[in-house]
């Protein structure tokens, strides 16, 4: 029912063309958002090399799951993709991340503009407690100093909450504080918040790890709906989740040294006939 609601709204990518592209399964076409390419990514914390030589392509309109045991560098990797990595003191980086063929680490790049195009949802729901639900959705607009007319703000709030699958639960109390919601609702509010600035790519760092199964299911539905109009990269420890929501899966592993990508491919292939023995061991639950 949310989809029919969404269809009434006009979003930047015409929904009809997105739906067509999606139904004809043509990842890589423009209506499905922008692709992201990571080239030879290395990441350090101080002298410690945490991530070694990771190159991954994320085609537009696809959902890619990053799986692997704790400490294998998945989170570090996803944080290099929108330059959140550099907030950690002593963090260092090598490699390139290309968004629409432009290096987001290039000199002269305004990092705040990059983060508007590559949104992020964190492990722990983190709505702004001093703001109401509606203000939380619009917080990115304010933070990035984008000006949109007052008349469009209400529509944007509604549109984002519908797309995040939260509208029906909060439409009568948009003035309530964000902290008054349950954990799962807060996380969907955070998703709605990141949608409001119209990102082309959405990074999700274990978005369901703090949530109960019901909320997890709602968020997975949300991801499926969103993937019709943007590129999504999700870190997850839950292999069922990876299998349910993603088109592609990348398996990360660290053998005590830096994390590396062991195998990447279509999700069905990773889970049914992986090429690497270590992948097979992990996805079949023999370790990790």
């Amino acid at each position: 029912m949310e989809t029919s609601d969404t269809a009434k709204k006009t979003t930047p990518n015409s929904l009809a063309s997105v739906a067509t592209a999606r139904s004809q399964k043509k990842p890589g076409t423009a209506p499905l958002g922008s692709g992201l390419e990571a080239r030879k990514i290395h990441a350090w914390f101080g002298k410690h090399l945490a991530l070694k030589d990771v190159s991954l392509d994320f085609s537009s309109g696809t959902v890619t799951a990053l799986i692997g045991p704790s400490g294998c560098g998945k989170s570090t990797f996803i944080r290099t993709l929108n330059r959140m990595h550099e907030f950690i003191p002593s963090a260092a980086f090598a490699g390139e991340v290309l968004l629409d063929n432009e290096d987001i680490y290039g000199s002269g790049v305004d990092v705040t503009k990059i983060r508007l195009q590559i949104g992020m949802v964190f492990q722990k729901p983190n709505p702004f407690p001093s703001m109401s639900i509606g203000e939380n959705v619009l917080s990115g607009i304010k933070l990035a100093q984008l000006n949109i007319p007052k008349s469009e703000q209400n529509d944007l709030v509604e549109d984002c909450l519908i797309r995040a699958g939260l509208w029906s639960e909060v439409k009568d109390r948009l003035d309530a504080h964000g902290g008054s919601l349950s954990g799962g609702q807060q996380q969907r509010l955070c998703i709605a918040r990141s949608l409001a600035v119209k990102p082309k790519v959405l990074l999700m760092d274990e978005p369901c790890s703090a949530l109960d199964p019901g909320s997890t299911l709602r968020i997975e539905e949300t991801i499926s709906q969103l993937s019709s109009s943007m590129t999504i990269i999700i870190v997850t420890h839950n292999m069922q989740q990876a299998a349910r929501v993603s088109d592609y899966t990348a398996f990360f592993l660290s053998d005590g040294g830096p994390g590396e990508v062991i195998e990447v491919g279509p999700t069905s292939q990773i889970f049914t006939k992986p090429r690497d023995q270590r992948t097979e061991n992990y996805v079949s639950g023999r370790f990790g």
Partner: protein
Amino acid sequence: MSNTLPVQRKISTKPRPSDVAFRGIVTSFGFINLAILTLIGAFLLFRGFEVFRVEGFSFLTDQRWELTEESGVSSGNIGIGAMLVGTLLAALVALIVALPVSVLTALMLNFYAPIWIRNFFVTVIDLMAAFPSILFGLWGFFVLMPSAEYWAMLLNRYLGWFPVFQVDQPFFTRSPFIAGLVLAIMIIPIITSVSREVFSQAPLDRIQAAYSLGANKWSMIKAVVLPFGANGVVGGAMLGLGRAFGETVAVYTVLNLVYSINLQVLFGAGGNVASHIVTRWGEAGEYEVKALLAAGFVLFLLTLLVNFMADWVVKRTVRKGR
């Protein structure tokens, strides 16, 4: 289905002897503070009570402090109206000047300064907080006052149309404005240090959320750090205000005590309860000493009032940013 609920049980635990002993120690030491505060208040009230009885409410409103004592019989008209107003005025000037300086310094140290500058500044600011106030007073008298008089003149010349900056006569020396500046310098370290502490506790996940939404540093600070730290800043400001109310020596050095209410901050005439007590102390007779202790009691109440107000403000805002 029966709807009689069971009786609620009393939940208790049997503490170990060591815990009982420690609990006794911390409790008794904790109550020492309260006991001292109560005793001081009671002493001031007890000794000053006669004055409150004789002078009544006019002790708070009367501006004059004229008193003759002959063979143990005192007569005259005494009140601390001018002194109270002067205290509030100078403290207000101090707060208006110190608050923005302190908050901006705290933001600079936490979010913009390299780590070595931060460490160095924190040391300097702590040192400033512990600096003897007479030195601030002397410096204020010899160094700050000549410049501040000139600033006061400029303020009066160009912003004199604004009631606050009016003066009846161009006499700018030893004004509440200058006393306020000296007090501001004294309370900046307190407010800065408290603000810096609360700002540094702003939750990292919210800071990252703001950045991930395309915030720059300033918009992140506006959306996350300031709402989170607001009540801490208020608390720091009230601590500073408390010191500004009670400060004696520094104010005494740079303020012209005049026993008539003056609301013109730039005009060289002001009042201050604490300085007033110190000035009159040496030559006071029996009744005047009581009057001074009564004045002390009023100052005591004023400080308590400010603290309760601060508490109230903090409690009202506490849910918003946290």
